[in-house]
């Protein structure tokens, strides 16, 4: 009887599971399978050979851009959260929450017009003589633009998660450190940071995967030529060449990169229970 009731509960999960399985799990498996097939459906490794030949550089580029953004985000978020945790700062916290509510496409477009050669940033800097507008540096259409935009958008999430972790560190620890003469930086470095390392690692993984998988931001401010973010390659391969084989091979590469991160994430989530 009890068994029966437990299986009844599974029924409640069926509709939601059906949608996620049909539109995520099955396509996910399909993309992995078709990446090993040629057009006739026979087994081949050609897709991976082509992907390696054409896009190996882009994989490195994607990891590099995401890594730089992640580093920026983590440093800023740890310092800002540390300051807020120790001295308080409602307004700073509020300001840092805003990017969470700005859609990715809007971030992409805003950064594009802000960082363009004659955009607002260069014009402002030119007013104080830092930039020569006759030969302005272009940030928007380079990897720096993508990195800055990704960092801007993810700063909010990083601060949210890291501040949350810092807040769960008891006051007594900070007081003890202060009694021994620890300044602001030492309190962050020697107390807050080591005590929230797991949460920060989880946040880093989440953000790194999201950056790796970012599509709309590089679509908006990416370069037309040269190295591309991986998701742009996948999209173009499908839309302009209808080449699902190579696109899916690239997809699998992105899964594997994300998986390294995901395994770590799953382990720490299940550990917390």
């Amino acid at each position: 009887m009890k068994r029966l009731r437990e299986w009844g509960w599974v029924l409640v999960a069926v509709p939601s599971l059906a949608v996620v399985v049909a539109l995520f799990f099955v396509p996910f498996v399909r993309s992995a399978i078709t990446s090993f097939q040629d057009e006739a459906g026979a087994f081949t490794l050609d897709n991976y050979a082509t992907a390696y030949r054409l896009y190996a550089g882009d994989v490195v580029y994607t990891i590099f851009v995401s890594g730089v953004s992640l580093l920026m985000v983590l440093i800023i978020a740890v310092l800002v959260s540390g300051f807020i945790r120790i001295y308080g700062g409602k307004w700073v916290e509020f300001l840092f929450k805003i990017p969470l509510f700005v859609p990715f496409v809007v971030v992409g477009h805003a950064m594009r017009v802000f960082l363009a050669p004659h955009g607002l940033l260069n014009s402002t800097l030119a007013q104080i003589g830092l930039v020569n507008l006759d030969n302005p540096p272009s940030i928007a259409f380079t990897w720096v633009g993508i990195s800055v935009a990704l960092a801007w958008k993810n700063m909010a999430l990083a601060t949210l998660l890291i501040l949350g972790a810092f807040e769960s560190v008891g006051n007594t620890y900070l007081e003890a450190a202060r009694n021994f003469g620890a300044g602001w930086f030492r309190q962050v470095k020697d107390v807050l940071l080591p005590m929230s390392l797991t949460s920060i690692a989880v946040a880093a993984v989440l953000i790194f995967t999201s950056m790796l998988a970012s599509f709309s931001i590089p679509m908006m401010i990416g370069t037309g030529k040269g190295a591309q973010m991986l998701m742009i390659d996948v999209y173009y391969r499908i839309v302009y060449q209808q080449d699902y084989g190579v696109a899916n091979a690239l997809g699998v590469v992105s899964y594997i990169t994300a998986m390294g991160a995901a395994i770590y994430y799953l382990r720490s989530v299940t550990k917390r229970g």
Partner: protein
Amino acid sequence: MTRVKIVRMILIVVAAFVIFGPLSSLVIWSVAEKWFWPNVLPQEVGLFYWGKVFQGRMVQALEVGVLIAVVVTALSLVMTVPLGYVLARFNVPFKALILLIFMLPQAFPQLPVFANATVYLYRANMGGKVSGVILIHMVGALVYAVWTMTAVFKSIPVSLEEAAINLGASRLRTFWDVSLRLALPGIVASALLIFLYSLDEFTGTLLVGSPFVLTLPVFMYNASQGYELPVASITALLLMVPGVVLLLVLERYLKAEYLSSFGRI
């Protein structure tokens, strides 16, 4: 202590510049009727493009987007409120597997998967249609909703439900009169975030809907790529309105656990 105040002031100013700098260029572009470099500000300023945008296809895209978001939110709530309760309270068989499946879309890049899902949707005759876009939005919305609903119901003390059962209420009545009532603020908060997610969704909409189903993010993307910068900037500003309203009105209710998975989708 004054040094702290000075540092805090500097932090606020720098943060304000970093946050509002990029956003302010949207405002300037939205009223720029004529703007050629090397001018720092537009030569001619006016609301011409605002009028144009509100007469054009933007309104249609807005209507379609809102319709999709309403359907997605309603369906997600109907499907995940009971499920969140069940997952929070009972030992469901294969619970770990169920949770794992709902974690997958968060852990892997969506675009390659959605590109393959698009093939299926076209085969099912739902590609390029509103129904297909709704379904693809449901994936992200459901994943988000399941996690938040489970968290919401977990935060309600079991003792209150036990009290109701001891007083003779049935399980169903306890769920309806006790659990659901207490969970309402959390349900409303996550419903608003699901709505916002669907309204802002770009990747799935572009893949499944384009070029037949146009929502605001896709409309904005097209305008931006076509160098219609004033039109794109106005649309970008409009797209920010719901999020800003939500942030201002609901800041107190939006707990970190609702937001942590939201920031990624």
